[in-house]
C-alpha cells in the first residue's frame, strides 16, 4: 500500500514539481475578467502557458522525496547484494572438497610436519600450541599487538580523567540511572557466588595457561578466563575493592611488561634463525608443565596480557578508566 502511494506521488512530482496546476489555472471566463493593469494578474496570465524547466523540477523533486527514494533504493539494493553474495558463496561451497575427507588439499605435508615433528622440534604434545607459538609464532606476536593496539584505542576513546572522575564526572553526564549510580552494589547472592567463583576462575585460568603446551588451552583462552574472574570480582565487590590489587598503574605495568617479554622472546627466536626451538633452548619434558621451551613463558605473558585487556575493556566501558 505504501509503495502505491509512493509511486503516485513520484509520478505527480515528476509531472509537476511543486507547481500545482490547479492553483494557477484559469478558465477562459476568469481570464477575461482579470484586470491586466495589476502586475500580479499579468504574471498569472503569463504563467498559463509556461512550465518550470525540467532540471528545476528534478531538483525540487529530489529535495522533497530524495531521502525516501534513497531509503527504498538502498533497501532493494542491499537485499539484492546480500542474496547475490550468499548465492555466490553457496555455489562456491558446492565446489569445495567434501567435508571430513582426508584427501582434502588442506591436509598436506605442512600438517604432517606440524603433527609428527611437534614433540622433537617444539617439545609440546599439543600440536596446536606448537604451531601457534613456534612454527607460526610471528603471526601470534602480531595478534598480541592487535589486542594491545585495540586496548590503547579504547583508552583513547573512553578514558575520563581520574581527577574529574573523582568529582563525579562520567563519560556521559546526562545519563541518569546508569549502572555507576548503583556502585557499590550489595547484592548478597552475587557476592556469595563471586566469593566462591573468583578464586576458582583464577586457578582455572592459571591451570589452562600452564597446561597450554600439553592440553587444550594456552595463553589466550586462559587469559580470557582470568579476565572473566577479574570482571566478576569488580561486578560483585565494586571497583574500589578491585583497585586495591589491580589499579591503573598495575594494569599498565603488566600489559607493557608482558608484551615486551613476548616480543623479546620472539625476537631472540627469530634472531637465532627461527628454525626450531630445540637448537637454542632446553625443551623440557614433553607432556609435563615445564615443556615446550619458550612456549611456556610466552603463554604466561600472553595470558596476563589478555586478562588485563579483558578487564580494561570492561572497566573503560563501565566507568571510563581503570
Amino acid at each position, binding site marked *: 500500500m505504501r509503495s502505491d502511494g509512493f509511486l503516485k506521488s513520484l509520478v505527480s512530482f515528476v509531472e509537476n514539481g511543486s507547481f500545482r496546476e490547479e492553483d494557477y489555472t484559469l478558465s477562459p471566463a476568469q481570464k477575461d475578467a482579470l484586470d491586466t493593469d495589476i502586475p500580479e494578474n499579468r504574471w498569472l496570465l503569463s504563467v498559463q502557458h509556461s512550465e518550470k524547466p525540467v532540471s528545476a523540477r528534478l531538483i525540487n523533486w529530489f529535495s522533497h522525496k530524495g531521502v525516501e527514494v534513497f531509503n527504498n533504493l538502498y533497501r532493494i539494493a542491499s537485499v539484492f547484494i546480500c542474496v547475490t*553474495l550468499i548465492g555466490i558463496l553457496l555455489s562456491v561451497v558446492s*565446489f569445495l572438497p567434501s567435508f571430513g575427507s582426508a584427501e582434502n588439499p588442506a591436509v598436506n605435508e605442512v600438517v604432517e610436519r606440524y603433527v609428527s615433528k611437534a614433540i622433537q622440534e617444539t617439545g609440546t604434545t599439543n600440536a596446536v600450541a606448537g604451531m601457534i607459538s613456534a612454527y607460526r609464532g610471528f603471526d601470534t606476536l602480531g595478534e598480541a599487538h592487535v589486542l594491545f593496539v585495540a586496548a590503547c584505542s579504547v583508552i583513547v576513546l573512553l578514558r575520563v580523567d581520574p581527577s574529574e572522575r573523582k568529582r563525579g564526572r562520567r563519560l556521559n553526564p546526562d545519563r541518569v540511572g546508569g549502572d555507576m549510580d548503583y556502585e557499590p552494589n550489595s547484592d548478597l547472592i552475587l557476592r556469595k557466588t563471586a566469593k566462591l567463583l573468583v578464586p576458582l576462575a583464577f586457578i582455572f585460568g592459571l591451570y589452562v595457561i600452564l597446561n597450554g603446551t600439553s592440553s587444550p588451552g594456552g595463553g589466550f583462552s586462559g587469559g580470557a578466563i582470568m579476565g572473566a574472574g577479574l570482571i566478576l570480582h569488580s561486578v560483585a565487590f565494586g571497583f574500589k575493592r578491585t583497585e586495591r590489587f589491580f589499579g591503573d598503574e598495575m594494569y599498565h605495568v603488566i600489559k607493557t611488561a608482558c608484551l615486551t617479554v613476548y616480543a623479546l622472546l620472539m625476537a631472540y627466536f627469530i634472531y637465532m634463525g627461527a628454525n626450531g626451538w630445540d637448537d637454542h633452548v632446553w625443551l623440557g619434558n614433553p607432556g609435563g608443565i615445564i615443556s615446550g621451551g619458550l612456549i611456556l613463558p610466552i603463554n604466561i605473558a600472553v595470558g596476563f596480557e589478555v586478562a588485563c585487556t579483558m578487564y580494561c575493556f570492561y572497566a573503560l566501558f563501565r566507568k571510563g578508566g581503570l
Partner: protein
Amino acid sequence: MPAFLQHLFTNYYETAAIILFGIGFTTLLMHRNLIKKIIGFNFMDSGLYLFLAAKGYIAGRLAPIITDGNADPSKYVNPIPTGLVLTGIVVSVSVTAFLLALTCRLYDRFHTLDLDEITHLVRKERD
C-alpha cells in the same frame, strides 16, 4: 537431487557457515541501529570460525594432542585452521571493542544510535 544441492548437503557445516555469514551481512546492511550493525558483524565472524573449523576436520580423527607418544599424522585432524580461528577470535574481540567505544562516543555526542539521525544531525551542524 541435483549434484549442486547434494554437495551442499555433504558440506553442511560450510553451508551453515555461509548462511550465518549471510545473516550477519544482511543485518550489517539493513539495520540503522549501530549496535545491531555490530551484532551483525559478530555474526559474520562466527560464520567464519565455523567455516574454518569445518575445513580442518577429518572424519574419525582425534584432536591434535599427542597423548601416547605416537605422532602419526594420519591419526589427527588438521591443526592449522584451529590456529587461524584463534587469530580470528582475537581480532574480532579487538575490533568489536573498538566499534563499541566509537558507538559510545557517538551516543554521548548525539544521544541516538540511529545512523540516519546521526548523519542528519551532523549535516545540520555543518550547515
